[in-house]
């Protein structure tokens, strides 16, 4: 089966004045469907940059990144936005919910870009919230939720469009151990049970242990790869 993500000779160089900083250096990577890949490494190792390029919110300086057999760098800004809306679910460290919207409305936000009816949108939002166990908190504002609940709403928002790819940038960084455990279990279940491809950036080896394989980056290069027995 063809990998969902194919990265070849990928490099990313930032120009900071006259200095060039290499964030990613000649990366090769294949990610299969339903994989749960964790990217680890110290700050500045390039793991978030790699995640951003795979998710279509950043571009490489050279090399190629194909997701679902699509060369993302060839897409226009608008086409890329549409592609992200339909194919990628984002989960961030600081949840990034819209504070004036309820949990339900935050989850509904990506669906406003679709042509779904209100009824259909409601069905999808309810399903997503049910999946993360927050159906009873759907009408609370983010400030009325705990950190763990906020992150679960963010996961529901990431899942509501039924994307093939879920990218998570340190999703447990702001959570207590119990909430982190819940979030990681959900991500694991997305890969194992729902067939989603999950890519997660983390500093925490315990969190990385939930993935099927881990890649360690150092100065923009792959240092080592751990594959866990399923």
């Amino acid at each position, binding site marked *: 089966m063809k990998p969902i993500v194919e990265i070849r000779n990928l490099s990313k160089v930032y120009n900071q004045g006259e200095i060039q900083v290499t964030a990613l250096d000649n990366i090769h990577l294949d990610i299969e469907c339903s994989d749960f890949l964790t990217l680890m490494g110290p700050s500045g190792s390039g793991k978030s940059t790699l995640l951003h390029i795979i998710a279509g919110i950043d571009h490489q300086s050279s090399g190629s990144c194909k997701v679902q057999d699509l060369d993302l760098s060839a897409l226009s*800004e608008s086409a890329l936005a549409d592609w*992200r809306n339909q194919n990628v679910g*984002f989960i961030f460290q600081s949840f*990034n919910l819209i504070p*004036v919207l309820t949990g339900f409305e935050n989850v509904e936000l990506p669906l406003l870009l679709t042509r779904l009816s209100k009824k259909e949108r409601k069905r999808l939002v309810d399903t997503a919230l049910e999946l993360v166990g927050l159906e009873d908190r759907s009408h609370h504002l983010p400030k009325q939720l705990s950190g763990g609940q906020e992150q679960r709403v963010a996961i529901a928002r990431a899942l509501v469009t039924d994307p093939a790819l879920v990218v998570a940038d340190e999703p447990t960084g702001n959570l207590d151990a119990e909430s982190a455990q819940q979030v990681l279990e959900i991500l694991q279940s997305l890969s194992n049970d729902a067939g989603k491809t999950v890519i997660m950036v983390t500093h925490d080896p315990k969190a990385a242990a939930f993935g099927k394989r881990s890649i360690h980056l150092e100065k923009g290069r792959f240092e080592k790869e751990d594959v866990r027995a399923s």
Partner: protein
Amino acid sequence: MTTASFILRNTLRNKRRAMLSALSVAVSLFLFITLQVTLRELTIPPEDIGASLRIAVRNKVSLAQPLPFRQLQKIEKIPGVEAVTPFTYFGGLYRDEAFTPFAQFAVDPIRFTNVFLEAKTSKVQMQAWIKDRGTCLVGVDTMKRYDLKVGEKMLLSGTFYPVDLDMKIVGTYEGTLDDRNVFFHHKYLDELTDDPGTVGTWWLRAGSAEVAPKVVSTLNETFANTSAEVRAESERAFQMGFVSMWGNIKMLIDSICTAIVFTLLLVTVSTMSMAIRERFRELAILKAIGYRRHELLAFILAESLFLSLLGALIGAGGAAWLFSVVDIQKLSGGMFIFFEVTTKMLGTAFLISIVLGVLAGIAPGWSVCRMSVVDGLKTLD
């Protein structure tokens, strides 16, 4: 949730700031409307049908120079002239007022009624006025303002003329553009000043709007190279001559209005930029989950437009309502009569608010469009 309710929720997320922004627009547009109404009140030309037929004749040297009474015979013979009356401004003060808000004119009562056809008065009162040169006709607005009754005395102290008028009110009139004036017998003024040979101006009525220009040119030609050359012009042109005296005030008011709009623009741009800067990360998230540049720009413009239009509704709408219920004539001591907010003024105010909303939204909207998702996510990290 709909896109509209999402925009509304974002606009009102900081209610105090949103209200203060809308109020700053409201106060400025209220001021703008007030200045525009004031300017219009000061410069409004007469628009009634009588005004298009009426012709004012004054001394070519200046309005302050009198004209000889003997011109009457020649004027009456000019083809197209239907009626003519002497019309002399008295400029008296009433009841020791520092400023009397109504004008007084010496006229020939019979000739006057043929020139100012729209002035409505009863036959009985008109006869009483014509019969007695010690009487006067007072506009209904002045009667109301001073709570005057027919039969009462009207005493006026002269300022231009070194004489005082002591007259009996025998009638009232209404239906003219300005129902505040007082009209009295020219012969009474002649007696008091002991000068039966001069008048301030002549006012006449042409037979039709078509012949009026010809009458004007004939009048000017008739008295050319005489000891009292005249300047004849339509009533509208005559009034606009007064308006031109307000030239600097007009420029001043226009300058203030421009300053108001410009200041308003700076305040609104600053407020919108602040509101958007605080939400850069949220907007980056929206971009990440699939919102396109033009959609985010539309959100920001909609927020900005909503606030400025709300301000216009409160400010311009409030001004229109206030000036329609408050007796401005009384408040201004009779200086302003109508003080009417026109549709054009309201349209201008709302147009300003739309332009303002768009301009205020463009700068922050543009930075959001240019922002990459990654940079946006970093801004508040």
